[in-house]
């Protein structure tokens, strides 16, 4: 099952530049939450703070607290690798392991964690590929084809399957469809909708129609601040803040 998220007074910096300012937000379990805002508003940094990816940049710093289910993400002594294992992430550009087979791509995370039971691995690979709506397209070539041999849309679903295989509690997606054609985008969006039965999903997107289509809640970021956060239908029909209104109606700047 998905877990809820509570972020309190989160501030983040790259060097001297503050990119997130006093973000406090509660994200519901088993909901899809979209994060929207113009380039440079801090939305990607925000989700990278949820699974400690932010600190992989040597210039990065942050303050504040993030609670994901029972994980206190920034607790002293908390293992960052463990956090990242429990919080899956899918990136803008599909990044399968190119030379590994489809099967190995999906099972890599588990095997890396010392999980080697053949039959259970088979089951998890199949389940993950079914969840990511790729199974029917690849079931006959699981060990014959490499990750790189798939189309862009298939590669992205493979990356989602890889993220799901380790059974994360939360799935973060950073512009997962921006490199995909409309048909693949439609499949991923349908998938996101299905995933919320078992996962909490936070998705960063530049595509507002996409946010409107897939998300239960939407947060609007601007210059490092969370301006408005509400039910998606409210944000896209009657936003409360003028700045949100200006952004989503395209009158920005």
């Amino acid at each position: 099952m998905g877990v809820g998220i509570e972020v309190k007074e989160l501030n983040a910096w790259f060097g001297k530049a503050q990119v997130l300012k006093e973000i406090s937000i509660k994200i519901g379990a088993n909901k899809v939450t979209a994060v929207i805002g113009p380039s440079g508003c801090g939305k990607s940094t925000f989700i990278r703070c949820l699974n400690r990816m932010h600190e992989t940049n040597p210039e990065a710093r942050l303050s504040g607290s993030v609670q994901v289910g029972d994980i206190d993400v920034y607790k002293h002594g908390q293992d960052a690798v463990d956090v990242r294992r429990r919080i899956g992430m899918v990136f803008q550009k599909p990044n399968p392991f190119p030379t590994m087979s489809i099967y190995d791509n999906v099972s890599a995370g588990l095997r890396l964690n010392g999980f080697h039971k053949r039959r259970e691995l088979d089951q998890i690979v199949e389940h993950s590929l079914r969840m990511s709506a790729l199974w029917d397209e690849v079931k006959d070539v699981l060990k014959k084809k490499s990750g790189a041999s798939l189309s862009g849309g298939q590669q992205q679903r493979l990356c989602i399957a890889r993220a799901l295989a380790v059974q994360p509690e939360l799935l973060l997606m950073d512009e997962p469809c921006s490199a995909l054609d409309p048909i693949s985008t439609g499949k991923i969006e349908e998938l996101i909708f299905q995933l919320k039965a078992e996962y909490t999903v936070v998705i960063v997107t530049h595509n507002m129609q996409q946010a409107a289509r897939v998300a239960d809640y939407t947060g609007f970021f601007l210059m490092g601040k969370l301006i408005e956060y509400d039910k998606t239908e409210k944000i896209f029909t009657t936003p409360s803040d003028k700045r949100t209104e200006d952004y989503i109606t395209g009158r920005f700047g």
Partner: protein
Amino acid sequence: MIRSRFQNGLDELKERLLEMGGMAEAAIEMAAESYRKRDGRLAQQVFARERQINQSERTIDEIAVDLLAMQQPMATDLRFVLAVLKINADLERVGDLAVNIAQRSLDLLQEPEVEVPVDIARMTTAVATMVRRALESFLSAKIEVAQAVLEMDSIVDRMKDEAFVNLVAEMKRNPEQVRSYLDVLLIARSLERIADHATNIAEDVIFWVSGADVRHNFRLTQEADSDAPREQ
């Protein structure tokens, strides 16, 4: 200007709808005038005006559908386009009702002139004012103006009820004139229906401007039904 093509489309919708509103207003007044002056030519002009209104309705629908399909309006723009589509339908109905009044006026020309205990002129003024105010509220995006239209509706309803009672009494007294009284009653009813459409237009303006649905006597307050925490 960002998205100038989109903005031009919205501006064009507004202009065309106001133009159509002007035609609808004129049609009401001509129809009422044709009744008051027993003037068949004015009634004919109402029919011509109604054809123009129908043409406008189609054009406005087309522009609105194109904007929805090509520009995917959001928030206030989305509410605006939706309101325009609904107001468009209301104005088209106003045109039809003006035609009904004109037809009754032509009917009355076939009958001898009778005294009627109904002030159609006063009722027309009230109804035309409602339509004009509703269009003003659309032009100026002012909720107060729209609200005033909503309040006028009950006055017109009362006028119609009164006309009904008086005309039925008159029908009993002078059964040979029933046809004329019936025509006048139908005119009063058409006017009352036009007032209902003016009310719908005012409600759509309130929805566009504030996002609140005030139809069927719901209060002018946005529902605070969100369970998400709101940030500054």
